């Protein structure tokens, strides 16, 4: 039996999973929508991965989780490593591009920049207050223009004269877009303008003050959009590398990290197990911490959310 490692990246929009061997080769991969139900999404993900995976030849001895639901899913999968997405993305990308210097990452709800020097993360930033210039903005605008998100990039490439669209804030961008459409700008120009707006917004906010040097790797869901890639290349005057598995870097990174941890037993059959979460408000003080309790087949397995020990929930082990 050879050893294999599962990495799961549960974002707000999509859930990504990979299984790798000890040499970081991808044995199975899957990408699906989270749809506001991380537990359900992970159950589906694990079921699909199981089908595409040779259980006779390989045995999973490590599980890692990352993404905004990493803690919850970490408990459910019994992961041996739970890592933030910044570190996970850096590790995943470095395994394929050891000399990478800059990582652009634009996902569904967040975007980040990671600066790497000699294989070590030296600086990073993440968007904080708003989702301007992320995937969800692009998909809502494409709907407004009657386009599928997938058509967006190729159409943008056709434009010779991208429309100028206010990039500072999605609300302004949206009204600007409507005006420009109504006064007769061509659709492909508007689409190209939007791609440019996303890039300017990204570089001015997340990328502000960061030393952007090549090689630059671009990943996250939006990296599938050729229009945005082109806009990045024009803006930075550098070649932008996009890996075919660019959306899986976080999952890959956390699977690699699980190789270094103590080995665990993993069971693919979680589909029939009932996982439930319950919010319990603490009445200890006026802060009323919202604590989350996780139940596995009715049994409490973990809890968090309390700020102080007064609100700690005891778990029988």
């Amino acid at each position, binding site marked *: 039996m050879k050893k294999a490692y599962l990495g799961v990246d549960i974002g707000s929009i999509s859930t990504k999973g990979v299984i790798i061997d000890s040499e970081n080769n991808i044995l199975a991969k899957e990408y699906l929508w989270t749809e506001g139900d991380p537990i359900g999404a992970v159950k589906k993900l694990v079921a699909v991965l199981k089908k595409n995976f040779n259980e006779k030849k390989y045995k999973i001895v490590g599980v890692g989780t990352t993404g*905004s639901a990493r803690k919850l899913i970490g408990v459910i999968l019994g992961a041996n490593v739970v*890592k*933030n*997405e*910044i*570190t996970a993305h850096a590790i995943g990308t470095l395994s394929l591009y050891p000399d990478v210097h800059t990582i652009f990452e634009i996902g569904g709800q967040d975007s980040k920049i990671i600066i790497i020097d*000699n*294989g*070590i*993360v*030296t*600086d*990073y930033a*993440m968007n*904080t207050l708003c989702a301007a210039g992320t995937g969800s903005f692009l998909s809502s605008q494409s709907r407004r223009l009657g386009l599928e998100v997938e058509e967006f990039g190729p159409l943008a490439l056709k434009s010779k004269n991208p429309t100028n669209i206010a990039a500072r804030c999605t609300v302004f961008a949206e009204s600007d877009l409507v005006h420009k459409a109504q006064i007769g700008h061509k659709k492909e120009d508007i689409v190209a303008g939007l791609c440019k707006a996303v890039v300017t917004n990204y570089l001015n906010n997340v990328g502000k*003050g960061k*030393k952007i040097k090549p090689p630059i790797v671009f990943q996250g869901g939006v990296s599938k959009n050729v229009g945005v890639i082109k806009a990045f290349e024009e803006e930075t005057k550098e070649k932008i590398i996009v890996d075919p598995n660019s959306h899986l870097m976080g999952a890959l990174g956390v699977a690699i990290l699980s190789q270094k941890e103590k080995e665990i037993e993993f069971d693919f059959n979680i589909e029939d197990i009932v996982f439930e979460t319950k919010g319990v408000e603490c009445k200890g*003080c*006026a*802060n*009323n911490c919202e604590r989350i309790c996780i139940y596995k087949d009715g049994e409490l397995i973990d809890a968090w959310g309390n*700020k102080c*020990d007064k609100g700690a929930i005891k778990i029988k082990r």
Partner: protein
Amino acid sequence: MKKTRVNFPRFGSYDICVEHIIKSGLDCEYVYAPPITKKTLEIGTKNSPDFVCTPFKYNLGGYIEAIEAGANTLIQVGGVCRLGYYGELQERILKDLGYDVKFINLSNGNFKNPITFYEEFKKINPNLHIKKLAQACALAVKMVEVIDKIEDYIRQNVGFEKIEGSFDKLHEEFLEDLRDINDKKELNLLSRLYMKKLKKVEVEKPKNPLKVGFVGEYYTIMDQYSNHYMEKELAKKGIIIYRWMNLTNSILNPNTKEVKQSIKNYAKYDMGATAMYTIKKAIDYAKEGCDGIIHVKSFGCTPEIDTMPVLQRISEDYKIPIIYFSFDSQTSDVGINTRIEAFYDMIMMRKEEKKK
């Protein structure tokens, strides 16, 4: 006549010192607002202008909670940024909300003419005894110094305690006992007693632990609730935390001239409030070999926004990672924890790489 029951906004552990001034120096009662919670911030946010800095909201929420707890006289301080306008605006808001309270605004005082402060204190107690007040203030200053000394030690060791919670427990006991102090002699005894107790707490420090320096805006850096207990979160990962910013260093011994001189390569003018100290300490921490620096501020804090380009230069010149946090009333823990975790991973991996 109604009894005067005074409240000052909660601020770190310092309200014990204010309580001492009010009780011993002015012969009035002191009312503690309940500890800051989500509710405090909710009340504050609801009644504040949306774009005002976050400490304003915490203060206002705290005032209202204190009034509900029986306070009828409120004190606000002044400062060389928007803080200077807090008092005036808060007094107006509270009045508009229908609260009948006396508001003492120390930003009406003028340091060049100390008698103006005396006038403000007189509003609290018209029959105040100047000698008594002076004595109480002198002791309060000493109390501040002791608090800062004790908390500095805790900050640098709490991440390595063998039994979790030992330092927190001692800290709580210390603050409890500090409340009963009447004179300098008692204070010195207490200080020595607790330093001894703290040094007895067993710690397991690795040979070369990670070190992180904190810089940033006055209130957010010192009030643990506002910065989401960031110091503690980091310390728990086994990091020594350095924080120069406290009342002892910034108010009692500020050394403005020297600070200005030492940062002249980076900033020519004082940008107000804590800006110069932020720059100075960032340089110091970088030179002293810290593994990283954390900059915290409330959303929209102008002096601290001004320091950020300078900090970016310092980060580049000294090759030290600096991470920036901006807090407002909507900030959730999740995003902060992700960034803190990533920061920890980053400085850890850098350190390991250096060892090789």
